[in-house]
């Protein structure tokens, strides 16, 4: 087992606790940046999709995983970001970078506005209220036809950055790099938040609101911050998503998407940045796996099998298995393996065994 000796106060404060990890992550980023050189256009599109979902996942993760506020309505904020970006580019004629930033700001503001009434709600009630919000989104998009194009929807405008045309179909590698840059910036900002008072305040209100207050943490302001940051990032993901799918209408941002997003971060591992990426990988990967399996079955049986909703079904089945056998998600499972390897051969089976646990009512507040 490797032991890190504490030799300075800086050690806890640094971005990476040790050099090894810094090198590992640098290699990972380099690999990600080199992907367009290796992959064909289809797979590169899928990789882009993973990055977009990971950004959305990080948006929800900060709220649910760290600040402990479960949301079943984040598709609404994807929609706000997506429409705000498209409308700003189209109607106000803003360049992409400006409209993208503004879309994040608008969505963040929307999040803060939602947070103010949501402050009084806890746990399951908050989840339900956000679910209702998600249900409303579809109808509101239809009702706000003058801006959103209603049922017909909108077409994502072309992106030009520094004279270069960034198009999902025309220049998929540029669009991929754009998404990669956004994902990296968000990841870095997220990591920074976690090692500063703001991130600690998030965790504090998640674990005990009452003692957070006694420590001087303003619960209302902190929750509003969490909602604001979360929605801002989700809005950015929504804006990218708009460009990725090219045309969109009210049917894109359904409550199913909200649920999928939450399920995704649970599978990835709640409370970890890596979890958002793992979850996105699973979410985007499943249809591909099914396609491969279907092609295989078709070749073997000679007839095609079509089961409607199989993607969602498989996704949900994976979710059930994860909650039952690895509630800490993919990230948690990997961490356990790491401990196992580091301790080998001194790792006991009991180490990760959970003792029976019991719940008390949450109706006493």
């Amino acid at each position, binding site marked *: 087992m490797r032991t890190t000796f504490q030799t300075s*106060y*800086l050690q*806890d*404060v640094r*971005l990476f606790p040790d050099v090894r990890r810094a090198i590992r992550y640098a290699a990972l980023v380099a690999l990600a940046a080199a992907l367009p050189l290796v992959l064909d256009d289809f797979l590169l599109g899928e990789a882009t999709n993973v990055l977009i979902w990971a950004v959305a996942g990080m948006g929800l993760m900060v709220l649910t995983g760290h600040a402990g506020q479960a949301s079943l309505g984040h598709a609404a904020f994807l929609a706000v970001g997506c429409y705000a970006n498209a409308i700003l580019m189209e109607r106000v004629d803003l360049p992409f970078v400006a409209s993208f930033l503004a879309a994040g700001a608008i969505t963040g503001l929307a999040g803060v506005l939602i947070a103010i009434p949501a402050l009084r709600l806890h746990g399951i009630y908050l989840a339900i209220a956000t679910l209702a919000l998600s249900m409303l989104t579809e109808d509101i998009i239809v009702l706000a036809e003058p801006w959103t194009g209603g049922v017909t929807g909108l077409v994502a405008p072309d992106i030009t950055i520094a004279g270069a045309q960034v198009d999902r179909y025309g220049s998929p590698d540029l669009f991929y790099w754009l998404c990669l840059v956004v994902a990296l910036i968000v990841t870095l*900002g997220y990591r*920074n*938040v976690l*090692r*500063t*008072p*703001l991130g*600690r*305040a998030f*965790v*504090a209100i*998640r*674990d*005990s609101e*009452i*003692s*957070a*207050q*006694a*420590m*001087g*943490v*303003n*619960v209302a302001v902190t929750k509003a*911050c969490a909602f604001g940051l979360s929605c801002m990032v989700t809005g950015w993901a929504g804006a990218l998503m708009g460009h990725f799918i090219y045309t969109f209408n009210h049917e894109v941002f359904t409550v199913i998407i909200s649920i999928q997003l939450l399920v995704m971060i649970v599978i990835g591992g709640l409370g970890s940045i890596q979890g958002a990426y793992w979850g996105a990988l699973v979410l985007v990967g499943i249809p591909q796996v099914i396609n491969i399996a279907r092609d295989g079955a078709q070749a073997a049986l000679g007839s095609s099998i079509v089961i409607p909703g199989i993607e969602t079904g498989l996704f949900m089945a994976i979710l059930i298995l994860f909650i039952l056998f690895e509630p800490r998600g993919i990230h948690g499972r990997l961490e356990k393996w790491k401990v196992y390897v580091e301790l080998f051969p001194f790792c006991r089976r009991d180490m990760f065994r959970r003792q029976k646990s019991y719940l008390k009512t949450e109706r006493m507040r």
Partner: protein
Amino acid sequence: MSLLDVDGVTVHFGGVTALERVSFTVEPGEIFAIVGPNGAGKSTLFNLISRFHEPEEGDVRFAGESLLRRAPSGIAGLGIARTFQNIELFEHSSVLQNLLVGRHTRRRASILAQILFTPAVRREEIAHRVAVERMIDFLDLQPHRDRIIAGLPYGIRKVVEVARALAIGPRMLLLDEPASGLSAEESRDMQFRIKDIRARMGVTVLMVEHDMGLVSAVSDRVLALADGRVLAIGTPSEVQSHPKVIEAYLGTEAAAP
């Protein structure tokens, strides 16, 4: 001027009187204990100072300023820190992280600066670590520094809670039953710690405690409450020998020397 001035506060909970015109003052540098039977209103008094409850009458002033105008989260910023009877720590964080939350009121950087992790934020973070490490040293928590609270024994958690409260850098520390659930040995350690907190950090201590051994060993003055009213106030021996206190709280057996 008194540090804390509780002036004629009255609190009712659905017809039950929790506090009835209670007044007392705590002087700077004092260790002041509140005793009394269960349900006498001791915790209510603490929650009043923490602003979790609202008094119907009366005022609570800290260093001359009324607390009633502050939000619950504004109390720590004034320099009042507290612990809880049933321990309210952040269960899934390490001891170090818990203590760092105690530094929350000392943060200066804006949200944007925190997201960007500017050099100023870095300097501030290091200052927080230095302060917190000092607290860890002071209360002998080094072996548990990086351990998650959920896995710590009860006695250690009690100390962590005190450390977290001290990380605020308070002028007054409210301890809610610091020795409850501790063995005689641990309770004796707690006694030394409370004395050190006053002697070395100059913090005024206000505590609620049942263990009369601890109360008489550390406190300068004691307030006895029963049914929301003040029974007696004075030195530990005065209060312990007060007939009404014996009748309502100590019982005859415990009062016998």
